[in-house]
């Protein structure tokens, strides 16, 4: 990591300093560009190798089960069919994949947002004060290992509504990683930074805004990234329980209709959305992290 960083930094400075004698600069830049292209080409190539192996295994499994497991070709036909008309709506039990996906994402975002809004301040409290830690940490330790699905009945009792109960389990799911990472980030603020606040008499507010939050932010975003990842895992199972609409319900419904092509297509779509969530938060993570 550090090696490549110094390398690129080196390239940049050399590029700048040699701006005057133009020929060499372009040469240098071209070399850097080509080495980058080569790097990407290589990683794409290896990713293709992996996918190819997976496809081969799938093909073999399909012939081994004598067609009970649909072939990749048959699956992709259905997959593209599903994508060609994602937003059709023929009543409550027959909706396009886009609508199903939309309602799942909506639930996840709602539960996740409420969870985060509660988890971040409590995490800050846990990280910043010993008493806060002593109050909340045992609760977190006790409840974190519980499968969020176990909360579903409680959600049903409290909200008397299966949709709300699903959002409730997403809310619970979204708490733990955010809590723990926020608390860790805030708890690990170096003494040096605290000394600055102390020496220059920073108010509580200034300390929070200018030291605590900027320092802890990368950790908080990591927590959010992990949280939304688990939330996306849980929503599928949650919607299988709750029924109605959503990608989880879609999987269950397709299984009941014995359309494994649709199940596998849904798995791919779930994977892609999860990957996109992860990438989005990784992007934010990189944005807010600083070089010490």
């Amino acid at each position, binding site marked *: 990591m550090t090696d490549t960083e110094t390398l690129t930094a080196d390239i940049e400075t050399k590029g700048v300093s040699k701006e005057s004698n133009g020929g060499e600069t372009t040469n240098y830049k071209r070399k850097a560009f080509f080495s980058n292209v080569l790097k990407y080409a290589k990683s794409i190539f290896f990713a293709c190798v992996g996918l190819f192996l997976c496809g081969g295994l799938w093909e073999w499994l399909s012939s081994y089960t004598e067609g009970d497991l649909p072939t990749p070709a048959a699956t992709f036909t259905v997959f593209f069919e599903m994508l060609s008309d994602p937003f059709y709506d023929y009543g409550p039990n027959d909706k396009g994949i886009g609508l199903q996906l939309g309602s799942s994402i909506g639930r996840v975002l709602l539960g996740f947002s409420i969870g985060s809004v509660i988890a971040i301040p409590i995490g800050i409290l846990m990280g910043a004060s010993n008493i806060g830690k002593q109050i909340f940490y045992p609760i977190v330790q006790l409840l974190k290992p519980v499968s969020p699905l176990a909360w579903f009945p409680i959600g049903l009792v409290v909200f008397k509504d299966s949709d709300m109960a699903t959002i409730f389990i997403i809310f619970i799911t979204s708490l733990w990683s955010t809590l723990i990472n926020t608390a860790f980030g805030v708890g690990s603020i170096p003494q040096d930074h605290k000394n600055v606040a102390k020496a220059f008499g920073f108010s509580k507010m200034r300390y929070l805004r200018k030291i605590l939050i900027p320092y802890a932010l990368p950790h908080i975003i990591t927590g959010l990234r992990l949280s939304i990842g688990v939330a996306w895992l849980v929503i599928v199972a949650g919607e299988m329980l709750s029924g109605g609409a959503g990608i989880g319900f879609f999987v269950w419904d397709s299984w009941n209709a014995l359309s494994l092509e649709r199940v596998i297509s849904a798995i791919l779509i779930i994977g892609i959305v999860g990957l996109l969530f992860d990438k989005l938060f990784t992007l934010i993570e990189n944005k807010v992290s*600083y070089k010490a």
Partner: protein
Amino acid sequence: MSYLEIKNLEISFPTPKGKYIAVRDINLSIEKGEIISIIGHSGCGKSTIMNAIAGMNTPTGGSVELMGKTIKGPGPDRGIVFQNYSLLPWMSVYQNIYQAVDAVMDCSKKEKQEIVLQNLEMVNLMQHKDKLPGQLSGGMKQRVAIARAFAINPGVLLLDEPFGALDALTKGTMQLELLKLWNLSGRDKTIIMITHDIEEAIFLSDRIVVMNDGPAATIKEIEHVHLARPRNKIEIVKTPEYIELRDRLLHLLTDKFSIEDMGMVYKK
């Protein structure tokens, strides 16, 4: 009663092996407007004493009094340059200074911005004001820390090896800037600095405090510098007072090592 009074100061730290006494029996009276250097071997407790004056740590014995009042914590009357600069890595050079000024000073936003720019000018970092600390060299970081301490215009400046990471040329300039600032204040600011550089100590100070080695380090000797101000760096080195003082300081700091070195030679 002096301006700054250190009385029987003892500072110990709790460690797994029990109490570690870093410094003890420190007695030092400092007048307003004095420049004091503290010199001593690494780890003897210089920063520890400095932090006690800054109010960053609490004495386990004795006291530090500023204008008759016991120091209980940090305050805007003392500006500190930490040994490790302590800049906030997510803020620009400008913001690092501005946040300190904004927290301490009681004036309009425009005046605060003016103060920051003036101090950036002083340490010659104007072109670098929008960089992050991670993009600066060690010496540049040190200058930011110096500008930040100066910007809040404190009565007492506490400088922990402020010029340690600077090259000889920049160091010379910064020393002159420090003296300029001191003169501008009507020689009213009290400056306490830690240094490892004997020549720097003589050039700048009224008195030089030489420390014993730790643990439980004490003051070994306090040397007065009688050279008249303004001092010319090139001229003073030729004076007999300078040469005598430098030899004495060298002796105080190195006698232990030279004896050991001789021992090594004889054993061969």
